[in-house]
């Protein structure tokens, strides 16, 4: 296959590791020029990693970031699937709803959406908590993007699959659930994984509502100690490590659902 040239020559992975190490080394040299105070990092790291609870006794740091991301991702996944089906639907109402939803939440900044929900909803009565508001905004926004992923994955399933199922007398719904979606969801895994990694970092936007996730802590520690760069770099490394873990999870999942068991 021309797109993936042969990697069987010995030492390929060793040489890749060397490239990574070299680039990491350059990064460390770059950062070392900042004259960082590593003591402050050591002191604040447990808080960022979430080994402590915040003063209200709630989660903070990494566990809170993960909670927000995983919850928002779960809701976004369902929203995305429903919106994708709406876009493929013959019903004008379903299509209209899905396309309006998609257009609005892909067409406006996530930060604005978060503030609209957090600051706008109270005008109508309900006063949302910061974390549920953040999860809602992230889920709505990412659901819109995921609807495009799912729509593309559903459309990409060979038309012969529909024909074969229809010829057997299967209903469209049964065909969709048992034949089309299992294949479409499998193809969508890499793109959904990329969305998840992206959301992990966009979850930092909920810090504007004062929820104590990684970015909020990094900024407030930085502000209090005048060690902004140390805290921001620490946050960056934490996000990076979490992303690498998610990438590994995605690779494992992709491998799991291959037909070649």
């Amino acid at each position, binding site marked *: 296959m021309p797109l993936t040239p042969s990697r069987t020559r010995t030492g390929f992975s060793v040489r890749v590791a060397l490239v990574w190490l070299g680039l990491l080394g350059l990064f460390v040299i770059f950062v070392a020029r900042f004259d960082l105070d590593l003591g402050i990092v050591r002191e604040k790291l447990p808080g960022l990693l979430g080994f402590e609870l915040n003063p209200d006794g709630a989660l903070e740091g990494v566990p809170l970031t993960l909670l927000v991301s995983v919850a928002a991702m779960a809701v976004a996944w369902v929203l995305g699937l429903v919106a994708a089906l709406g876009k493929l639907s013959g019903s004008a109402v379903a299509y209209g709803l899905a396309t309006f939803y998609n257009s609005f939440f892909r067409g406006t900044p996530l930060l604005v959406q978060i503030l609209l929900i957090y600051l706008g909803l109270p005008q109508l009565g309900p006063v949302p908590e910061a974390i549920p508001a953040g999860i809602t905004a992230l889920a709505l926004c990412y659901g819109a993007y995921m609807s495009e992923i799912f729509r593309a994955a559903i459309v990409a399933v060979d038309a*012969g699959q529909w024909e074969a199922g*229809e010829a*057997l007398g299967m209903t469209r719904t049964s065909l969709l659930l048992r034949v089309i979606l299992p294949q479409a969801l*499998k193809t969508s895994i890499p793109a959904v994984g990329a969305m998840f990694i992206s959301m992990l970092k966009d979850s930092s936007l909920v810090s504007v509502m004062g929820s104590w996730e990684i970015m909020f802590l990094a900024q407030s520690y930085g502000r209090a100690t005048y060690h902004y760069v140390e805290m921001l770099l620490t946050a960056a490394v934490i996000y990076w490590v979490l992303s690498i873990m998610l990438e590994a999870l995605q690779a494992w999942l992709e491998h799991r659902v291959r037909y070649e068991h």
Partner: protein
Amino acid sequence: MAAGAPLIRLQGVVKQYGQQQVLRGIDLEVHAGQVLTLIGRSGSGKSSLLRTLNGLAPLDGGSVQVGDVQLLQGLPPPDRIRALRKRVGMVFQKFNLFPHLTAVQNVALALHTVQGRGRKEAHGLACVQLEKVGLGDRLNAWPHQLSGGQQQRVAIARALALAPDVLLCDEITSALDPELTAEVLAVIRALAAEGMTILMATHEMDFAREVSDRLVFLLDGRIHEEGPADRLFSAPRTPELARFIGAMG
């Protein structure tokens, strides 16, 4: 053999895609137990004709009747389509197996979801069906682990499991090399011998001549010549058919 009412009756069937008319008024009758083969160049309407028989291609004119189910112009009501598809099975050129299901699951799926049989019963029937097409030892293979010929035999088993009255075969060996073609044709030959009603489109002229009761030569969406297979091959009446048979060797 051709006594009584025909199982399948097409009257003035018209099918068009956009401005392109692919079937221009087809009249055809097939009796139970007959094997009818459609021949003709690519684009002559063979595939479209087969697809009108199970509602995959809605009619733009005329009528199709299979048993007591009749389709007219336009989108038929869903219950009528389902009634039709209970009677008509179809096998495709590209197999169209479900790649996320094993051979036996491919066959069992519609037994479960369409016929409403329990999972165990569906599985049992699927095994029997696969044994019939000589795949009793590959029940749990995934489609990609099977050769093209084996995949097509699973597809045949999948269609036959629902016990249709008619089997449509749309160029089912066109994607196979000669060796694999032979194993698929052996299954069709056995079905024909059992008295299955079969309508097929094929470019396998020797096979068509061997198993068909009747041959229909399509040209530009019309039936140009039809009759007993031997007669059409040995004494074609139209120069177009003579030329076609000559070209196919």
